[in-house]
């Protein structure tokens, strides 16, 4: 089986490429810059998977590494491939669509091509399909080929080594291999890939990850940041941060249960398993990395506001989610307290105004404002003993 990975980043190589290699696929990697140079030079890369139980490392051979600018060569590889894995960030899907379109046009095989966009985005599959369709002649039988997004469970926290070195790069992640794809959007035969789970309701699966795991992750990051922690694995051990993260995730589950049913939402064992993952020091995940781009993460429908929206629709009161959102407002534009230059955020910060504008009239907006005011009045980053005061529900 031949497979093409477009996007030689952490998810492309540290997750998709590793699973495809385990499925027996021969990998062609497509990308830009020094990482491709390294792959061409070394012909391989490594994936180191670590958790509290230990670590294991695998070396992944790369059959060919191609520059994305070499459209002809890339199209030839896609024409012969059974599967294309894409991990370029959702905003870049349009840019790689011509490569896939060219590959499909050059294709002579009867078997369909399945394209999986490992973007953790609910509409990556349809968007990529639409972008490819735009570049194909009318009447091209695109429906014969599959396009789906993928919800990735693995955290790939970093890359060890320098691309310009002679040694292969090492991608550092946790051992989770589950990824969910939209079954109706893919075409048979789909190669058997470790971790692959076919779901019919992709949006529900996506929201489950976003409103539970991701909501908990940023709660740990934002509150951990406020309390001066540098790493997620340390912050999650702080009793207040842990309690708040659990509360936010429980609220996410309650919202999901109301919308999609309790079976999908999961229960307490899933939450404990997630906390265990956050405790994984092997990932060396800084709170600053997990919390970055707080304005995007505060948007309507995103991990905090989206979960709160489900709760509000179901009449479920929220306390942990607005607390995390208020902490994200403090994080926004702030430097780490450790650098000694952190200042108490000026009131009212624009991020808070944006939330309020986007969520006008909602209970969530009011709760976030109340939590932020509580931080601002009874808590400062400079405070002697930071005790997060928690809202009474």
């Amino acid at each position, binding site marked *: 089986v031949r497979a093409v990975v477009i996007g030689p980043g952490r998810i492309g190589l540290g997750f998709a490429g590793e699973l495809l290699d385990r499925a027996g696929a021969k990998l062609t990697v497509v990308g830009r810059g020094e990482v491709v140079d390294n792959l061409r030079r070394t012909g391989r890369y490594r994936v180191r998977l670590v958790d509290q139980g230990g670590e294991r490392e695998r070396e992944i051979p790369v059959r060919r590494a191609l520059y994305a600018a070499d459209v002809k060569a890339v199209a030839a590889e896609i024409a012969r491939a059974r599967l294309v894995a894409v991990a370029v960030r959702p905003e870049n899907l349009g840019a790689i669509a011509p490569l896939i379109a060219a590959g499909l046009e050059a294709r002579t095989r009867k078997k369909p091509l399945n394209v999986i966009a490992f973007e953790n985005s609910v509409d990556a599959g349809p968007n990529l399909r639409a972008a490819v369709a735009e570049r194909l002649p009318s009447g091209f039988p695109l429906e014969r080929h599959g396009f789906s997004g993928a919800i990735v469970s693995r955290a790939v926290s970093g890359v060890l080594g320098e691309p310009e070195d002679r040694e292969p790069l090492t991608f550092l992640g946790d051992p989770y291999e589950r990824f969910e794809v939209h079954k109706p959007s893919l075409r048979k035969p789909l190669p058997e890939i470790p971790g692959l789970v076919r779901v019919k309701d992709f949006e529900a699966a996506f929201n489950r990850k976003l409103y539970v795991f991701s909501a908990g992750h940023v709660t740990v990051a934002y509150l951990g940041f406020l309390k001066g922690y540098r790493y997620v694995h340390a912050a999650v051990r*702080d009793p207040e941060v842990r309690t708040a993260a659990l509360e936010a995730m429980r609220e996410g589950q309650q919202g999901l249960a109301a919308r999609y049913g309790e079976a999908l939402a999961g229960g307490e064992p899933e939450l404990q398993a997630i906390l265990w993952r956050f405790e994984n020091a092997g990932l060396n995940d800084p709170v600053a990395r997990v919390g970055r781009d707080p304005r995007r993460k505060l948007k309507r429908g995103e991990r905090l506001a989206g979960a709160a929206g489900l709760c509000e629709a179901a009449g479920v009161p929220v306390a942990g989610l607005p607390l995390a959102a208020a902490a994200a407002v403090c994080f926004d534009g702030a430097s780490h307290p*450790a650098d*000694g230059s952190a200042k108490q955020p000026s009131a009212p910060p624009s991020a808070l105004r944006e939330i309020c504008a986007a969520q006008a009239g909602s209970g969530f907006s009011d709760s976030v404002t109340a939590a932020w005011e509580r931080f601002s009045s009874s808590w400062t980053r400079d*405070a002697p*003993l930071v*005790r997060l005061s928690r809202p009474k529900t």
Partner: protein
Amino acid sequence: MRIGMLMARHPRSKVSPIMPEVVELLTGWGAEVEILCPEDELTPLSDVRVEHDVYVLKSGSELALSLAGALHAAGATIVNPYPVAAACRDKVIATRVLQSAGVPTPETYLAAQAGELAPLLDYGPLVVKPYRGTNGVGVHLVWDPDQLDDVAHGGVIFAQRYHKPEGRDRKIYVIGGQVFGVKRVWPARTYEEKLGEPFTITPELREIVLACGRAFGIELYGLDIIMSEGNPYVVDISSFPGFKGVPEASLRLADYLYAAAERAVRGEPAVPVGAAPEVAA
């Protein structure tokens, strides 16, 4: 990552769990932590070499400080850096560094003979301390010239103007830019007394506290503060205090030290560049 902890063996009588918990956390996070107790063993000086990515100088003993100095000379990365720890250990140097940074300290005098302090007593009492002392040992409050005869000094007389403190002892601890204030009775005898209770750090006091760290280029330290007639005076600095009374102290310390070790592994200074001293220590 390999971390060498220069610390005294935890005696049974010592009940603070903080440093054992720090070691346990760091080990659980994958660091190789070796406890180095120079008081417990014969150390051939010629064998002293850098075998860890970072050393943590927790012990307050003279032997540990000297060993840290030898490691520093051999190129070791130490938290806190040896020159800073050595400066903090010497109240003459530490106080002058703080004064130069604009930190409020009591009027401070040096003398070779205690009798030279006598004229100063006309303006009020003095606190005479061993210039390398800790834990309040050997501290004398001197009101009259007659009392100066009792002051043992070992060649250096270190005296500060006495300011009557308001209320209990105030300890301030800093871990990576986070400031914690703890009030406790003096002398604190039991572990519970040493845990004290929190007090609020005003913005003005916080600025003074952080100025002390900037003066030495460190982010991990403790201060003794006297509040007198509404004014704060910094009377001592420690480069690695006990952090008793700081919530989640062991977790915060482990988090800080883990980051320091990571920086050391990457070949960066263990203390971030942003903490560079305003005054050379």
